[in-house]
């Protein structure tokens, strides 16, 4: 079993409420609000207008630049409008509103039967791009870009991230249990595209069933299953690479600079479906959990489904909510209301009960050093938070490696003074970005 060498925390994983429940399919809601921006990069450009009839899987927004990914309709129905609705990450953002006709009909001639082994790499990357696949672990980085590294980068190892180290989330785990063949096929496809011979699937120790099943299924392939200690933030890309290969991604560099590529479980399943059946990315598995949810579940949900519908399907709430979070409680985004919708990178929706919200006021740093101990990046979060408090954002960047922070949140988790260190760090990063932008326009 491999471990993080230094740092990290072990919050209670809270996975027992959903980990043994089969994935259920959420009935198609009457209205879907499909955001145009579900990836890192420019928003997609809509190619439909209000009043158009669309089919399931039909392209409703195209990539403006070949980097951003296209967006597809998640069901069949009528485009009601293109307007601003709640996006879980960016607030009010342009969405295509599709009124379901209840038929959920595929676009004609869309689906295909293909054998990936007969396809060329360029063909497969094009298929992946056209089907709108992005990294489904949380960042939403377009997969076709990840799979076309620059010529001078020599990638020799593929790492599949099945760590799922965030509390509550079990969607990756359920996918490994219910769709192991798709995931392994997606892994093989990715290995072929990247031309790598070595592949590890890293799974945390608290998912023994998944480790056993995947080990059995991977027999006869060059894929190796690696058992990892249960520790947050092991699923962070850089940690995963370090733990499994011993390589450290240098500051400011990408995994490909140390010859690695990391893929998420959900992404691999989506790759298989796109390559073999030409199914675009229009739905995903989302964990709906939290202490206030009556019947927590893993749901197969159409992209663009409002959170409200999902909570209703799970029996509603049994206690007052404090926070609703998209993603896990360590790194997820707190939501303003339940109108927010599921996007490609939403792995879970977690509710935090009102009486579990930490209302304790922030105090001064008492220099206990716990944040320094848990910081896997080897930073000094205590000093970063104080510099940000004092407005010395530049010093934080030049002398204290501000930009290396991955915002995993371990420092806040252990801080006895309840200092929201991650918030301070984000503030510094944002202030510095504004300064850089101002300097750029000033010099022009």
């Amino acid at each position, binding site marked *: 079993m491999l471990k993080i060498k230094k740092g990290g925390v072990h919050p209670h994983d809270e996975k027992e409420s959903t980990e043994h429940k089969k994935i259920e399919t959420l009935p198609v809601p009457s209205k879907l609000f499909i955001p145009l921006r579900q990836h890192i990069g420019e928003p997609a450009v809509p190619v439909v207008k209000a009043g158009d009839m669309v089919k399931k899987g039909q392209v409703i927004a195209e990539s403006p630049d070949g980097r951003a990914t296209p967006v597809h309709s998640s069901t069949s129905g009528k485009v009601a409008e293109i307007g601003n609705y709640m996006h879980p990450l960016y607030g009010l953002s342009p969405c295509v509103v599709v009124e379901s006709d209840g038929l959920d009909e595929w676009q004609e001639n869309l689906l295909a039967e293909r054998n990936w082994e007969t396809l060329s790499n360029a063909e497969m990357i094009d298929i992946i791009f056209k089907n709108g696949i992005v990294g489904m672990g949380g960042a939403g980085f377009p997969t076709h870009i990840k799979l076309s590294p620059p010529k001078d980068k020599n990638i020799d190892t593929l790492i599949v991230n099945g760590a799922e180290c965030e509390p509550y989330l079990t969607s990756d785990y359920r996918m490994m249990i219910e769709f192991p063949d798709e995931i392994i096929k997606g892994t093989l496809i990715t290995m072929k595209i990247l031309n790598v011979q070595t592949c590890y699937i890293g799974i945390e120790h608290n998912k023994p069933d998944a480790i056993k099943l995947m080990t059995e299924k991977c027999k006869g392939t060059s894929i190796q299953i690696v058992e990892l200690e249960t520790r947050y933030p092991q699923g962070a890309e850089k940690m995963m690479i370090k733990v499994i290969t011993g390589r450290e991604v240098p500051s400011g560099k990408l995994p490909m600079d140390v010859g690695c590529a990391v893929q998420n479980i959900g992404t691999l399943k989506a790759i298989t479906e796109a390559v073999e059946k030409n199914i675009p990315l229009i739905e995903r598995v989302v964990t709906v959990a939290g202490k206030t949810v009556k019947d927590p579940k893993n749901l197969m949900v159409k992209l663009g489904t409002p959170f409200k519908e999902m909570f209703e399907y799970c029996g509603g709430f049994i206690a007052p909510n404090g926070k609703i979070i998209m993603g896990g409680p360590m790194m997820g985004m707190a939501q303003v209301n339940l109108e927010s919708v599921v996007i490609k990178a939403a792995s879970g929706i977690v509710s935090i009960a009102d009486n579990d919200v930490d209302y304790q006021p922030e105090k001064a740093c008492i220099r206990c050093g716990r944040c*320094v101990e848990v910081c896997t990046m080897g930073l000094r979060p205590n000093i970063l938070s104080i510099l940000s408090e004092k407005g010395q954002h530049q010093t934080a960047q030049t002398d204290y490696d501000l930009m290396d922070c991955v915002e995993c949140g371990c420092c806040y988790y252990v801080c006895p003074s309840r200092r929201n260190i991650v918030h301070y760090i984000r503030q510094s990063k944002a202030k510095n970005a504004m300064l850089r932008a101002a300097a750029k326009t000033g010099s022009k």
Partner: protein
Amino acid sequence: MDPKDNKVNQTPEKLIVTSSPHVHDTESVTKIMWIVNLTLLPAAVFSVINFGLPALVTMLLCIAGSVAFEAAIQYWRKKEITVSDGSAVLTGLLMAMCLPPSIPWYIPLVGSFAAIGIAKHTMGGLGHNIFNPAHIGRAFVMASYPVAMTTWAVTRIGKEGDFSGAMGKIASLDVVTGATPLGILKQQGYQALVDSFGSQAAMYKALLIGNRGGSLGETSAILLIIGGLILIAKKYIKWQVPVVMIGTVGILTWILGGKVDGKLVLFTGDPILHMISGGLIIGAFFMATDMVTTPITTKGQIIFAVGCGVITVLIRLYGGYPEGVCYSILLMNAVTPLIDRYVYPKKFGSIPEPAKRR
């Protein structure tokens, strides 16, 4: 954009929006401070048995003084009054434990003012002080009242560890004065010290149990070590700090502490005597591990502990005072920012080039 603002005026029907993370472990400053207070309690109770009511009066005056000065200063500065977090109580208690058991009533109050007013609040309050407030308080009254501060009450517990006599006299305010072991060592030498206890074994036993003269809370090595072990188990302090500090003192006094006919003979010192006498145990477990005034990293804390040990030995063997733990820790407090500047964790991604496959 202040993170604190986001949490106010939210009714449960509305959702709270804050930056991640959204979960926290159960530790807090208040909890840490009160647990440290509790771990000191056995030694504090023992001091009352050992030295009687005057010890209790001194302790209560120190604690009351610290809490009152903290509240008054925070009220005056229109800051939130935070005496309930236990840090002022801890400062008062720690300072009391480093004072002689029986001193005039005003000395604890002057000491509390120096500790809380000067050492803590002129720097900005909890978390900002450079020097350990309890030790500043002690150093302040040491310089101000040298005679009272070197007048030591003798133990009321019998030589054989007989508690019954002490229990009978616990409510009495009578004080019989005597010398501390390190005082005898400094003035009369090692043989006189052993003779004063009867035998070497009796001396070690007395030092461990605590039926000897000294500052009121520092005498019982065993109870202090038990308290310290609890702190180590709770991960509030690191075992490296007390081990390294006490070890440094032991090794150096073994090398340099032995004298035959007034001449130094190397490697003949009595390390055990030095390791369990004076304020070393309380200093190493409770003062050199103070979070605020010691380095952040474990490596830095080890350097700090070595420095404390070396300075303690220098003062004990070559300085004017019989005991040097207080000053050694204060001096190393002054070096802490420097240590933190040069000793920091290795940044992730600084392994030059990769490629070692597992």
